[in-house]
């Protein structure tokens, strides 16, 4: 059968569509046509028609117009006032971060050697190192896909280390994350949800549930609802006493001011770095970290790549390489630890640049800003008749409110009409509200006023009443 494609097709992305070159190459290899190369594909598997897809737009300007036209239907959170979080956060991304990750050399590199890809190794070693300082732990991986995966792997590691099957989930977990984690580990682990009390872990329930069959005690802090676990030290002690591993899922954004979990006894600290310099991207730009102490029992269970420092033939020159490569599926297929593949390295570089810019003061001020705005938002909203806070826990960035007089969905619908996304609906009467460094006090005031008008149209709450 004949080639279905016209011979004259020349595309800017495919140099050797230039007819003379194509012919010269066919001649060089002694082929009649490209068909020769497909000799191993049985005729009955051949498509023999053009794919049924829309007509192409090879002219870049036509393509750009088409794609922009579709995306123009979106309204960004620069056009809407957003209090949405639930795992994807609207933090400010410094221009320098974008500049670095846009660099062709980083954006289009893949898996070169520590020589000609030295820059990538160093940037990711630095990322590991910067995260390590933030988390107060000595080992951090090259990023895995996202925080869901990181925590799932953290628990799987605990399972392999202990040989036990039970996992106690002590915090409120983002439902989507729980879905991923449970399915990921279920060949080896059973995740038992221990109900929270007042938004945080119930230590009595923990005591009751613990036993020598528990592989891991799993804490999320901040939890799904933004509650910060303040009794991690006690939890860790109890877990350790039972021989269980303490696995924390967290967002590192607050550790400029908050004590990192390792200092309260966490063994494996996991989470997402989207808050550290990544745009929201419709929830499509995440990366997961897994941090442990510098203890081979832990390190050897990590599936991801770990870049380590090394000397070279030249004194004073920093070299890099893969630490304990033999752990990985690249080295040993199914005998490696889980698997390693294309994950989220570029986002690790982004987060490294972000932390380099922020420094200790930046992270401290940022953490304080988030705590202050969270508290302020809680105060403003809680002072509205018909709105109560979900709990009294310490919150960072997110918290829930209960609406007495109106279904959460209706409140959301009403506020959307004013260009406000007031939060994520958690249940019939509950909204999860998120504030960040991008959410100014006046933004919060605007939310409060708009919510007040909806939940108790009669009342006239003004900012003055709060202060």
């Amino acid at each position, binding site marked *: 059968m004949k080639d279905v494609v016209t011979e004259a097709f020349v595309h800017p992305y495919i140099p050797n569509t230039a007819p003379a070159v194509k012919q010269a190459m066919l001649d060089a290899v002694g082929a009649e046509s490209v068909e020769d190369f497909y000799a191993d594909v049985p005729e009955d598997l051949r498509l023999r028609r053009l794919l049924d897809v829309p007509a192409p737009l090879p002219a870049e300007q036509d393509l750009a117009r088409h794609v922009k036209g579709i995306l123009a239907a979106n309204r960004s959170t620069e056009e809407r006032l957003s209090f949405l979080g639930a795992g994807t956060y609207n933090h400010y991304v410094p221009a320098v971060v974008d500049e670095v990750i846009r660099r062709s050399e980083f954006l289009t590199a893949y898996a*070169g050697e520590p020589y000609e890809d030295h820059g990538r190794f160093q940037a990711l070693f630095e990322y590991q190192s910067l995260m390590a300082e933030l988390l107060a732990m000595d080992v951090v991986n090259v990023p895995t896909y996202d925080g869901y995966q990181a925590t799932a792997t953290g628990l799987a590691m605990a399972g392999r280390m202990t040989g036990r099957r039970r996992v106690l989930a002590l915090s409120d977990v983002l439902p989507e994350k729980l879905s991923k984690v449970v399915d990921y580990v279920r060949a080896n682990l059973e995740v038992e949800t221990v109900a929270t009390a007042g938004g945080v872990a119930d230590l009595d329930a923990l005591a009751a549930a613990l036993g020598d069959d528990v592989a891991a005690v799993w804490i999320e802090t901040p939890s799904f609802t933004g509650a910060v676990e303040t009794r991690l030290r006690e939890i860790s002690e109890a877990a350790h006493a039972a021989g269980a591993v303490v696995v924390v899922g967290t967002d590192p954004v607050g550790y400029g001011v908050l004590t990192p979990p390792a200092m309260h006894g966490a063994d494996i600290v996991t989470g997402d770095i989207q808050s550290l310099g990544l745009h929201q991207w419709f929830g499509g730009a995440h990366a997961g970290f897994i941090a442990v102490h510098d203890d081979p029992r832990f390190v050897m269970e990590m599936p991801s790549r770990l870049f380590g420092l090394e000397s070279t033939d030249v004194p004073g020159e920093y070299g890099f390489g893969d630490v304990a490569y033999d752990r990985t599926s690249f080295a040993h297929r199914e005998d490696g630890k889980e698997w390693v593949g294309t994950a989220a390295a570029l986002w690790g570089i982004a987060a490294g640049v972000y932390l380099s810019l922020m420094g200790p003061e930046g992270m401290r001020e940022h953490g304080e800003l988030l705590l202050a705005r969270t508290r302020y938002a809680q105060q403003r909203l809680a002072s509205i008749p018909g709105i109560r806070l979900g709990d009294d826990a310490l919150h960072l960035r997110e918290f829930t409110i209960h609406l007495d007089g109106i279904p959460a969905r209706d409140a959301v619908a009403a506020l959307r009409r004013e260009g406000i996304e007031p939060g994520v609906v958690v249940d019939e009467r509950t909204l999860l509200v998120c504030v960040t460094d991008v959410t100014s006090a006046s933004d919060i005031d605007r939310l409060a006023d708009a919510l007040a008008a909806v939940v108790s149209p009669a009342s006239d709450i003004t900012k003055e009443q709060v202060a």
Partner: protein
Amino acid sequence: MSLPIAPKTSPRRFQQASWDEPIVFELSTPGERGIAITPVEPAVREAVGDVVADLPEGMRRPQPPALPEIAQMRVLKHYLRLSQENLGSDLNVDIGQGTCTIKYSPKINDQLIEVPQLRAIHPAQDPADTQGALEMIWRLEKLMAEISGMDAVSLASPGGSAGIWTNIAMIRAYHESRGEGEQRDEVITTIFSHPSNAAAAKVAGYKVVTVYPDADGYPDLGALKAALSERTAAIMVTNPEDTGIYNPAIKEWVDAAHEVGALASYDQANAAGILGITRARDAGFDVCQFNLHKTFSAPHGCGGPGAAANAVSEALAPFLPGPRVEQVEGRFVVREPGELSIGHVAPAHGVILHVVRAYAWIMSLGAEGMLSASQIAVLNNNYLLKRVLEIRGASAPYAVGRRRIEQVRYSWQELFEETGITSEEIGVRMADYGFHYWTSHHPYIVPQPFTLEPTECYSKAELDEYVAALAQVAQEARENPELVRTAPHNQTVHHTHHDDLDDPERWAITWRAYQRKYFGVVRADAVHEPAMSTVA
């Protein structure tokens, strides 16, 4: 000397940038700031007081994290310098990342994803405000269905191996839904299928059975049949395999699997040679995944983010991960995962950046263009094969005299026997000419392997230059092996000593650990004993 200038050498004289940059921590000067933070508004401060002082006992970090303090320009400079020390495919003739399908990632696609209408949208926004993003997902799913011939597609998986995981997770759920979850506890793969197939199956709880090729390097149908049984949950195979060889009996493989009630999963991470030529459905597969960052041109980002499209038959559609995008009366709506679904495999809708890039790439090419891309990728590969085999010491084991699809696993075994120079050493030396290559996945079934995949994106002239460098290095291996052995000479850093990397006492995975282990500098916030030391 004066004009005119002599002709250039081939391969080119290359020297990579080398800035001898310190580690970022060494750039720290106390008091410098990289960025200023928006201040807490006075009204907020007044309303909430000192939130840090008010933190509960033990919750206030006792000392700030030991991050570096560096002014903005210097942070920028540091990372820009590091970037120059990296060989992205935009700069390199990147045909040596064999099996990894390095294509041109069109710059227009990078521009398109940077519009605020994509970069600054949140997945929980009113769907009325994200119709554009949802339409993109919907459109790409439709395209992928046509490309694969399958019935339903999900774009939720955040990488190729993640897509393989999604495949096996669906297969597991499928068998469970039919009450065969316990019974089917084996997965069969081939040694020249990507290791993630074996690894993901293992994580899902399966025993992995690996089939080796026949003497010609073709997947061994007899061996497969011997391995199949009512315990088999699935076969998980790549095709063409890492060797670039297409399994002509692929339909027989699938049929054999189906015969024992197993499913057939097709790792199409790399379909760059067969787009529009043959489809997963035509061979009877139940499920397959494509890597958007390979066949569909999204950039690799130093190792991610990636993204996969999982395409399935109607029978498996209910098991796809969620959320799903559906079109209802011209509007796009989001549906949470249903009863049978494996649930969420990643946040939100997957890696939207790559969804848009892949969509744009397909739309730029259309049906003719994709077909042409495949054909030229294959032409490039067979041309390269011809040229490489002209180099003394290089060979292409298996299927001798036959054509390959889009890549070839070569061998320097002859050269090694003659010179003692390994493929790894040759790879390092190749980069002295500005070219990267990678050997292959382990285990090294092919001795002294190297794997080249030229894709459709490189001109003949570039392929010729690459081969000239290969030939040059092979000659050096004979004439001046020391030169090769002591490489790199023209790259950012020099020969690196890897001994410390496998010794827990000596490895240094972070600056902090390095400071502690080698200089006795212990951070104030150091946690000295891993608390878990109670575990045996």
